[in-house]
């Protein structure tokens, strides 16, 4: 989902502006007004992991990059990883039959896909929880 910064949501006129900016997130730019906002899939975390891996001359390990939403999710509902790597966790999850793409018919090819809720439509097999 896109968001446009219609106003300056961080008050640049406040004195400790730089401190506020650093405190909130030192590795991401605080967007000013007039700029689009989008989920970057925590590009700062990807970059950090990528640079560390490159310095050691190895590919990024699966699970090395943890997006902020994934980290914060108490039920571990979010998986993040390299879709191109068939052995990665995300590739396995995406192969599951419950996997679906929102508005797939529009051919927007989003990276974020969802898993449907598992339901039991047959009451003989037990109650739906």
């Amino acid at each position: 989902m896109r968001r446009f910064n219609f106003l300056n949501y961080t008050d640049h006129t406040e004195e400790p502006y730089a401190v506020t900016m650093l405190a909130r997130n030192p590795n991401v730019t605080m967007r000013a007004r007039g700029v689009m906002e989008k989920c970057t899939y925590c590009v700062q975390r990807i970059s950090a992991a990528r640079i560390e891996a490159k310095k050691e001359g190895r590919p990024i390990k699966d699970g090395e990059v943890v997006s902020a939403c994934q980290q914060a999710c108490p039920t571990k509902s979010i998986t993040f990883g390299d879709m191109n790597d068939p052995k990665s966790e995300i590739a396995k999850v995406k192969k599951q039959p419950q996997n679906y793409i929102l508005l797939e018919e529009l051919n927007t090819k989003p990276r974020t896909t969802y898993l449907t809720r598992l339901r039991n439509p047959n009451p003989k097999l037990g109650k739906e929880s």
Partner: protein
Amino acid sequence: MSAREKLNDDLILGKHTFRTINDKVNNVVLNQNSHTIPWAVCFMVGFMLLQLMGLVILWLLYRGIGIWGVNNPSMWGWDIINFVWWIGIGHAGTLISAILLLLKQSWRNSINRFAEAMTLFAVACAGLFPLLHTGRPYMAYWMFPYPNVLAMTPNFRSPLLWDVFAISTYATVSAVFWFLGLIPDLASLRDKSKNPIFKGIFGALAMGWRGAASHWQRYESAYIMLAGLSTPLVLSVHSIVSFDFAVANLPGWHVTLFPPYFVAGAVYAGFAMVLTLAIPVRAWYNMKDFITMRHIDWMAKVMLATGLIVFYGYLCEGFFSWYSGNVFEIDMMRFRMFGPYGWAYWMLILCNGIVPQFLWFPKIRTNLVALFIICQFVSLGMWLERFVIITVSLTRDFLPSSWGYFTPTIYDIGMFVGTVGQFTFLMFGFLRVLPMINNFEMKELLYRMTGRGHHHGHTAHALEPDLAGHTAGDGEEH
């Protein structure tokens, strides 16, 4: 040369000679007592609204465009509605001056100057909106591919960038076209003006025009070529504006019908605005001899024709959404008609579909009050059309989770009213400092209407004694 075409003899009414045409047109500019109280009222109101817009823009630059009613589903809001509305109005001028010139429609001669000025001022109003809507208008120069230290070029795949080029080209070509047509008239003002300062200004702008045969030859050659250049622009600009919508994936926008339907709508709105201005101005300045009932009748007919195309477009949109069988398209149409903005849709059908049908009747076409009122309906209808297209589709897109509602704020209204003020201010300022009717083309028209050999009664006697004293030019003779 003997092939003087047959012309309607009511394009110029009254007993006119070259001298009386010249005096009448120039008098508005040279004799400042010619301006009436309604003129002063319009000019002052326009000026005040312009100041209001200045304040709104200042506050906007300080705070950001969040002071408008724009919000996250409805990111375009009034801003783009007004932009498309104004740019549409701007189309009539170039259509009249370029396409009608190429089609040899002599009735364009008395309204082209006026309509071209209207085009320029409407484009000036239109251009403000997308510029401010970028959110960081001070970065707007990024939209031009200049050699920069960022190694960045604008994204030529974006229809919003096509807009930048379409509109800046249109504005440039329209301005050049307008100025080129003004040169001989500026020379006439230079020769007739008594005030040495005005003489100097008009003289500098006339760039040494002497009305020599070689001047006229180059002038006509250049003018016809500019008309040829402008003609595709008339069609391309609003097509490209319609791509802003049609290239997007949103239901209600993703329609191939948009370019022709937008262009027709633009011409429709443009003629409504020309009539809105022409009807009072011809009365205030007593130009009824030049902008005759026949002109008004023809403009009303153009309005009727383009209005029917637009109405056909609305019917098509309804049909397409039903026939597509696409759930999003069908629901979008349902929301348009019966959703929270249903009132706007039915108002639109009333203004653009029903009211113009009165133009079928010649009596209404020649009834100035009725015609003026119909023009206001058309202007409102064309505004509502953009409102319906933009607001309904944006607030009702694919995901119900992102639906919203749009309400304008006082700053939206201030911007819109402000541009109306800017337009009025510029338009009435123009009436005061430049000839509102193409002086030399009217004289040429009179000459063509009253060619020797087939004199037309009332204007016949005029020619012989008058032409000689009227050779424009203080140049050297051989």
